[in-house]
């Protein structure tokens, strides 16, 4: 078991406000890791630091031993870290197929000349990309919806489409920000199944989630944040018993 992603002493300061402080954990290859914590604990900020949307103030983030901290987001995606967004960021005006092709972009290479001259190589690549995108749509459970506009999909389907888009970039690590947000129970069940199948493809998953049943069912390992600091780490069973976690998080969350 080797660490695919390593966070060491990661700190992010906005203005004077410390959003994430000295957080460190490893994401082990092949596992599903959950990142939980109360609202404002710095989960999404941590994600944004991993995916290069924000720059770390201090600390290091390494993926397969390579530092990510100075790379731009698209480079990080290329290295194999794909993500979804907390408040869905699909290309709403475009079809599901085009959305997935966006994820395929970094694994294809046709350039300007290829586009203008429409070379055989470019056409072959294009056909393959479309085929792969369709396959990913099928995989996440959106068969036959390729030509629907993203904005016309139901909320849960939009979440799935975002996952398909991320998968199309052939990630080694998939970072899901509240994938079950806005989903009903049945959809959540399907999502747990989907996460299982993603794991079965050999893709490591890191996810933020508020739905504890999902977290407990889907995750192999859990990290808990509170006020920007890591307060616990361990397998679900251990976390469920952890005193500080119960006080800080589960106590309040479960009560509501």
């Amino acid at each position: 078991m080797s660490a695919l992603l390593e966070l060491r002493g990661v700190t992010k300061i906005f203005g004077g406000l410390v959003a994430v402080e000295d957080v460190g954990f490893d994401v082990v290859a092949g596992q599903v890791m959950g990142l939980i914590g109360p609202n404002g604990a710095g989960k999404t900020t941590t994600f944004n630091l991993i995916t290069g949307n924000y720059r770390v103030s201090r600390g290091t983030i390494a993926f397969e031993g390579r530092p990510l901290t100075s790379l731009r987001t698209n480079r990080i995606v290329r290295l194999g870290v794909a993500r979804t967004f907390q408040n869905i960021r699909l290309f709403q005006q475009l079809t599901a197929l085009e959305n997935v092709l966006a994820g395929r972009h970094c694994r294809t290479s046709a350039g300007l000349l290829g586009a203008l001259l429409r070379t055989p190589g470019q056409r072959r690549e294009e056909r393959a990309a479309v085929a792969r995108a369709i396959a990913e749509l099928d995989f996440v459970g959106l068969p036959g919806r390729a030509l629907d506009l993203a904005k016309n999909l139901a909320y849960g389907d939009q979440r799935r489409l975002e996952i398909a888009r991320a998968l199309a970039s052939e990630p080694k690590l998939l970072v899901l920000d509240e994938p079950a947000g806005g989903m009903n129970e049945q959809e959540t069940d399907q999502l747990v199944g989907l996460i299982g199948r993603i794991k079965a493809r050999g893709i490591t998953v890191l996810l933020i989630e508020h739905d504890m049943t999902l977290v407990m069912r889907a995750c192999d390992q859990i990290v808990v944040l509170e006020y920007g600091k890591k307060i616990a780490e361990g397998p679900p069973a251990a976390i469920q018993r952890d005193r500080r976690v119960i006080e800080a998080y589960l106590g309040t969350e479960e009560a509501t």
Partner: protein
Amino acid sequence: MNRRLLVGYLVAAVALILAPRFLDAYQVDVLNSVGLYVLLALSLNLILGDAGLFNMGQAAFYAVGAYTAAILNTRLGVPMLWAMPVSGLLAAIFAVIVARPVVHLRGDYLLVVTIGLGEIVRIALVNDVFGVTGGANGIFGIARPFLFGHKIRTPDEFLYLIWGFVAVTVFLFHRLEESRFGRALTFLREDAVAAEGSGIDTTRYRLMAFALGAAWAGMTGSIYAAKMTIISPESFSFWESVVVFLMVILGGSGSIPGVMVGAAIVVIMPEIFRDLATARMLVFGLVMMVMMVVRPQGLLPWRAPRFRAGDVPRDLPRPEAAP
């Protein structure tokens, strides 16, 4: 390509080929003017319509192209049509250099910066930068272009040259739109953060959009120089950038046929109103307002869908099976 669009293009092409038989020199020259602006509008559409980058300084690239060709021609005797690709290339390089530090700016900040770039270029031309632009006088005595040994001189001949280039441009730009490159620009326009998060190098594509748009504006500039035989800084004023911007939005931002219609209307309308003499621009302004209110998406906002049912294959291996 969509069949109706194809028919539209064919009808337009036939009409243009036959136009000199039915129109007088002035009317043909209006069409030439339309053609030049169609090219400019299409070039800006790449940047503004496709990539969603607010650029109100397209005249700067147009100017770089026109001046490059004019200088090459009058100083080194390079034939105008040979100078054309050089114009495009130089305009593209110029665009990349000036856009690099500012391309990440948000919408309206980019808008004002591009206005500034346009003005800086114009002021530089007026002040005879490097001693080669002729200052306020501009450059005169530019040779007419030769095509296959034939000197292009009359409005009719320019009609075929300009619209021939329009046809090539439309063909290539439609291809571009349907390609991986065109899609990347669309993603960029729709949501730059999501595009970057999907693995698209947004900075690179922003610059590519600028480079390509500038290259086309530059080549158009060289045709303009060849047609006018004299160019001066006032032909590349801020107003010129505004007019091209207007054509793109009025016609339907991001839509190739729309942008062409926009250019045609903005050029032809003031000509139709010529008989109103001093009131012609007043009516023009009014019509613009009304058109926008009536059709807020532009006159012809139509974009070709990239994929239709036939493009979607079935019976694919499931990704689980793939390694």
